[in-house]
């Protein structure tokens, strides 16, 4: 099945094209991004349930114009009075700019965007349309999963299940471009919360992808894993801070690829001189075991699209090739400023926000090692499993990854001891250069959460990899 573009956008396309044409008489470059995203979030827990609009739901537009020196934007969500919209765009791009210049503000110069002629569309595939399944059926299935989870352990306080269905419809119009895309994705979380004499412990498993209601069946396979994880956490101990040999599971590998490194090659940071990655272009940054990719076309997950929020087609960027930093990832305006080619990474939290260089699907490629061999090679260390959060430091390459738990390995054997919580910190090049084994397992990507830039601008991304072995500082 193919996702269908929003009727609202189709019905109003001519009106929006006219707006672009009218504005083109005043401005040398005009583009319009229209978004009509629908979605619903469902949740069940021991004490109740909920069915509400997805936080990603939106319907609105953003216009970008060349103001003679650089670019101005206006976001709006009413089409009632097109003349008022045009007046507001002129206010922002002409009047406000004049006031700012009169006050002595300097404008950063940008070249004019050279658009190429392009008409394209894209629809993602899915098996079962989640929007055609009733709320009653979804809640019933989720309650079954909840009951199954609770039945696995007497110490569970709750077993929460959440499901989210989102269909993104976007059009991008400029003088030369006419692009449209419709993308359907689903997310699920199963969260086990338990209490022992040591206090409350919890863990979660996530599922995501450009898929439909078929994801619901996949959630059942995660129940045992998440319940067993909480049981292990009941007996977990604090870790003694120090440097250890670590094996990162695919989710932690992905977190490192994303937080420790990916943010550092977002090229709007190059324009600001905020990224250390700029100094390492075409230089050794990691061990020769490391290949890393990012791109809307690198894999099919929640970061997949035809075109980004500036109308640039998505690509597949080889960021690190056998230890060498080969390429950053770029939005359109940063590429214009840097004289590079945009990579289709200009993304917005919503039509209401500015576009920045953002990741899409980010991962370490698989290697040639076997996981059992990796475990055998450890003298004293931990297998790191699951993560809660991470924080980037693109300028100075500090790392902070909050990991759900560590599984102790001594002399090549898993001892059964679990440590939690675990924070992985350190210096990015040290960590990447210490990677000496990469497993040959199938690539695993997850995209249940959202990625911020600093502390805002949330976008859907996926991250992953296979198992990697390295040296890491844990606390």
């Amino acid at each position, binding site marked *: 099945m193919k996702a269908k573009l929003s009727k609202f956008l189709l019905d109003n396309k001519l009106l929006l094209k006219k707006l672009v044409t009218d504005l083109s008489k005043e401005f040398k470059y005009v583009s319009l991004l229209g978004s009509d995203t629908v979605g619903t979030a469902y949740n069940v827990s021991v004490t109740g349930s909920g069915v509400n609009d997805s936080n990603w739901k939106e319907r609105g537009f953003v216009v970008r114009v060349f103001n003679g020196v650089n670019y101005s934007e206006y976001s709006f*969500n009413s089409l009632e009075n097109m003349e008022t919209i045009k007046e507001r765009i002129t206010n922002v791009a002409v009047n406000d*700019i004049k006031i700012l210049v009169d006050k002595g503000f300097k404008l*950063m110069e940008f070249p004019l965007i050279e658009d190429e002629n392009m008409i394209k569309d894209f629809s993602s595939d899915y098996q079962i349309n989640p929007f055609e399944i009733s709320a009653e059926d979804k809640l019933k299935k989720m309650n079954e999963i909840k009951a199954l989870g609770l039945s696995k352990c007497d110490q569970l306080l709750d077993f929460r299940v959440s499901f989210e269905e989102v269909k993104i419809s976007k059009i991008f119009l400029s003088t030369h471009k006419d692009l449209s895309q419709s993308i359907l994705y689903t997310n699920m979380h199963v969260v086990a919360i338990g209490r022992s004499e040591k*206090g*409350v412990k919890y863990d979660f498993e996530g599922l995501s992808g450009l898929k439909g209601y078929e994801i619901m069946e996949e959630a059942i396979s995660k129940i045992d894993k998440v319940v067993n994880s909480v049981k292990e956490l009941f007996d977990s101990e604090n870790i003694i801070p120090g440097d250890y040999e670590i094996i990162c599971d695919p989710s932690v590998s992905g977190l490192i690829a994303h937080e420790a490194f990916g943010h550092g090659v977002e090229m709007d940071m190059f324009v600001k001189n905020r990224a250390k990655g700029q100094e390492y272009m075409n230089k050794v940054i990691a061990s020769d075991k490391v290949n890393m990719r990012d791109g809307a076309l690198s894999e099919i997950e929640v970061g997949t699209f035809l075109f980004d929020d500036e109308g640039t087609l998505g690509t597949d960027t080889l960021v690190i090739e056998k230890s060498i930093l080969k390429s950053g990832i770029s939005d359109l305006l940063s590429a214009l400023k840097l004289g590079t080619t945009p990579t289709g990474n200009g993304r917005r939290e919503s039509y209401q926000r*500015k576009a920045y260089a953002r990741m899409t699907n980010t991962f370490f490629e698989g290697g040639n090692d076997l996981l059992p061999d990796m475990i055998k090679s450890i003298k004293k260390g931990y297998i790191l499993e699951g993560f809660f959060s991470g924080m980037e430091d693109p300028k100075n390459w500090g790392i902070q990854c909050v990991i759900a738990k560590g599984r102790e390995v001594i002399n090549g054997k898993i001892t059964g001891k679990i440590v939690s919580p675990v*924070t992985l910190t350190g210096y990015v090049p040290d960590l990447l250069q210490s990677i000496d084994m990469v497993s040959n397992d199938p690539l695993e990507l997850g995209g249940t959460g959202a990625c911020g830039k*600093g502390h805002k601008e949330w976008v859907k991304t996926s991250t992953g990899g296979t198992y990697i072995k390295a040296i890491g*500082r844990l606390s």
Partner: protein
Amino acid sequence: MRKIINLLQNKSNVDEYTITEIKTSSTELFFIKEELQMNRGKDIEEIVVTVYRNFEEDGKKYKGSSTTKLDPTMNLEEMEKQIDTASLAASFVKNEFFNLEQPSTEVAPIIPSKFGEGAVIENISNLVKDLYEENNQFGSFINSTEFFINKKDIRFINSNGIDVSYTKYIGEIELITEANGETESIELYDVLEFSDYVKDSIKNAILEALKFASLRAKAIPMPKVENLPVIMNGIAAQGLWNYYGFSASAGNKYDNLHNNNVGDNIQGETTGDKVTITRKPYLENSSVSQYYDQFGTLLKDVVMVKDGVIENLLANRRYADYLDIPCTGGINNNVVNGGSYTEKELKVPPYLEILKFSAFQSDVMTGNFGGEFRLGIYNDGTKEIPVTLGSIAANIKEVQDKMYLSKELAKDNNFIGPKFIKFDNIRIAGN
């Protein structure tokens, strides 16, 4: 709005409803160094409707709800279809019954803001000017900034007759400061949030950011240490207090995540300072100040924890009914009382003072807190050494018995609390 109210009132499949209309206008400026990279404007209207279905099963009353957003580009037919879909979904949501909020004769005060005076482009220009006037001090400079002023006109209506309107302003500055060290340049990241034009507040924030950037440029990796007292900057570690908010939340009690009651001592016996926390609907220059919550409850100051003991459970209309306790409403401003020590009394060498975290982590459910720090001062007893690339970890339940708070207070947007928090027994990871 009248059309939506009529629609909801005439629908037999909607028993009760709330409507929140938010009209947002913004002006936004983005700078790299001192040059304007982009300017933006925004005019958005959002109407959020929650529909409720009341029903009984086996003699027990239930209330289902579903929240949906209506867009101004929708015609009446589309709105009706969306409300019907939400209503149907609500009929399958089986939550315990509660009563929606009733109207109050009391009128909430107006939230003052100088951003309401004059043109927004002039107001935002003043913020830029104030900030950049302090640029290039202490060997540090501004790398880049983003400025936002949002005006929000909010109207809340419910089916019991509440109809209140208010205006609030939300200001935000993302500030990246940079300094050159011996081997490399460094940066620090700050976000300033506010609701009013307070020149001194902007000036103080940029000066502190530049000073801290200057210190980070001189910082060395945190050495390995043992048994060293840790003093956390109260603003950097304000997330620490979320644990007490979680432990006094009626919603979390209802969800069986804790079993605390009014009168329970959640801090336990302590040889340090006892914790007192008040929630306030209005705090000067706070971007989250508001006198009404999501249910339309008129909010008042509430003492949540006094000397480590729960004084009030925080309960919105729904959980207040569930637990049959007073409704405090959802309140966003957090005020933590100062302690019994001066800064000088707390800073007895040796110690590690943490000024900036990468992102302070506070897991309210387990009590774990800590994180990597980007800037600290290690006083080894002989000198003060700026340090970076270290981390701390602890559990509040294990260390709150020896928590020492400064008398001096610090303010950051919706938070006022001790400027310094000291612990003797926190794990420190160094190099």
